[in-house]
């Protein structure tokens, strides 16, 4: 954690706004674009009115042309600018895969280092009321899969600000993942500018009995699960990897080697997903670790609340699985935990 005294209590969305505001002041090559970035809502406030401060060419709305506009950003990056392309939902990135995977990830390699593509792709993920099959997906594994792309998914406001600043300054294409249910979470954030390094994870809670690794919003739920687990005497160590590519394998390996149990809480489908990568790495590199994963059910996301609830992992289901792995009572039924950010959500979107 950054130790400056000058910290303010702000929320995740405000932290992202600060990162944008400060980096735009810092470097005139930085610009933001995306559907609605300069509209009255300014992507959850994160880009609100930035065009008034920095001019229309540096914070501008676009046609619904995700494929071309990704290429436009790449081209601008090739010309020395530092574009930030903001997406209202990560599901729309499926329209950009060609530009991101076939182009952005390759240009440095096929030009032997002559060119770089310093673009940031900000993508909101995450549930709320009935987002359904096409507004709930989280494709971190698609980008982790590809050499040449970095992926970052901060959970706390502090890390959100610093990680966005690092992403903007990074000379590679970065996919920056923001969970909608985190925007309102508050935390102490330095007012000045700072970076969160890629490839470094964070132990958010120490424990000796089991290692729980979450990603983005499931880190929050993992912490809640850790609270529940305390009541049955299980001390969980909770890890927030923050950076998914590169990923801090060392941190996870050493925690798992200590606790001998690893539960990965995915924020997406598990097959060939984030959780399968973490478990595989530990299975290969550590001895005698009991592994498990929990994540989205293997179905499209349904809209009706009762099925939506069954679709996502939650603090209880995480705690139950962890407790079983620790040899606890299989019939343990922890009390309901309030996921306030989800409960307090009022539609429409």
């Amino acid at each position, binding site marked *: 954690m950054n130790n400056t005294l000058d910290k303010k209590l702000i929320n995740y969305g405000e932290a992202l706004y600060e990162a944008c505001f400060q980096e735009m002041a810092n470097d005139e090559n930085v610009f933001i674009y995306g559907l609605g970035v300069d509209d009255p809502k300014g992507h959850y406030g994160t880009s609100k009115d930035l065009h008034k401060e920095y001019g229309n060419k540096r914070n501008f709305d676009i046609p*619904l042309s995700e494929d071309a506009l990704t290429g436009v950003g790449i081209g601008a990056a090739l010309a020395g600018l530092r574009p930030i392309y903001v997406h209202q939902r990560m*599901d729309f990135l499926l329209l950009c895969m060609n530009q991101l995977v076939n182009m952005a990830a390759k240009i440095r390699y096929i030009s032997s280092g002559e060119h770089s593509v310093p673009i940031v792709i900000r993508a909101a993920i995450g549930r709320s*009321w009935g987002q*359904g*099959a096409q*507004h709930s997906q989280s494709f971190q594994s698609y980008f982790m899969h590809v050499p040449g792309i970095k992926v970052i998914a901060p959970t706390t406001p502090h890390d959100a600000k610093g990680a966005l600043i690092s992403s903007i300054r990074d000379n590679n294409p970065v996919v920056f993942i923001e969970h909608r249910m985190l925007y309102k979470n508050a935390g102490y954030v330095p007012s000045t500018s700072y970076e969160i390094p890629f490839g470094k994870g964070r132990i958010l809670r120490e424990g000796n009995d089991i290692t729980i690794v979450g990603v983005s919003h499931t880190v929050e739920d993992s912490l809640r699960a850790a609270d529940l687990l305390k009541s049955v005497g299980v001390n969980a160590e909770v890890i927030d990897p923050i950076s998914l590519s590169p990923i801090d394998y060392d941190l996870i390996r050493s925690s798992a080697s200590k606790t001998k149990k690893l539960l990965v809480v995915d924020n997406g489908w598990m097959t060939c997903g984030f959780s399968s990568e973490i478990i595989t790495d530990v299975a290969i590199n550590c001895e005698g670790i009991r592994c498990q994963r929990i994540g989205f059910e293997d179905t499209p996301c349904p809209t009706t*609340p*009762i099925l939506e609830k069954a679709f996502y992992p939650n603090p209880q289901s995480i705690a139950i699985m962890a407790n079983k792995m620790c040899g606890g009572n299989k019939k343990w039924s922890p009390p309901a935990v309030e996921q306030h950010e989800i409960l307090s959500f009022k539609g429409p979107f």
Partner: protein
Amino acid sequence: MKKKFNVEKAYYLFLLTRKSEEKIIELYNTDKIKSPVHLSIGQEAIAVGVNMAISEDEVIFSNYRGHAHYIAREANLDKMWAELYGKSRGTARGKGGSMHLNDWGKKFMPTSAIVSTAIPQAVGYAYALKYKNQKGVVICYHGDGATDEGVFWESLNFASLHSLPIIFICENNKYAIYTHQDKRAMNDPIVERARAFGVNATKIKGSSTEDFYNATIDCLNNIEKESKPHLIECNCLRWRDHVGVGDARDLNYRNEKEVDEAITNDDLLSLEKKLPISTVNAIKLKVDSQINNAVRFAEDSKFPEVNELYDNVYG
């Protein structure tokens, strides 16, 4: 051959559509509808006009702003309401919500929440009609924003290349969320571009139900003579917010005077004026009772069982 425009029918469909969405507004703050809703209020004339022109055989592709297309098609209102409530008697047993309505009985295909994604499917359906030597025309509704997407133009190109029987109904409400068309393309170009892509395109001058009805009839007659894709651009104005039941007037993202004018010129009122009061009253009663029944149907339905989660992932 032009069927005469049936004002009574138009008024009924229009009122059913309007009142259904007003009911959504009325009930939304109860949080029983835990689903994003993209209301069509202000744009219903298009769906009503088109629907009155087409036959039961036509297949409909629509989008997340599909309530009007669905209701004016007289697709199952009970099931729609049950779906909004997330109930097991809904159009997708509660798994789809407002953005994925569908009713095969009325050839109303499942809608998509990703802009422009259903367009090529509508074209593929038209290809299948031709492949199978079947009669029929595909109706494909979309917004002005959808024409920003490359897939839209790829689809038009394929449709013209194969002379497919399809009508694109472009509902131009001038906005994609809060972004005006002028910030997305120069010179209001949809019709001209469609023509360059080999599609017979017309921008409708008026904006009444009857105007849209006539335009659709003309297209159908043309297609009967010669299979060829058509596009009709329909001007309209969405009264409410992009999503949800508010009107977002506080955001000041558009000229509120124009909104007021549109509300004053509501075609529903014009239709009503053309009918005897007794007819109007009878229709109002009928519509109210249909909607109340539908809401009751939704209320009375059960939520799906948790073990249904895995149903229909694969078939």
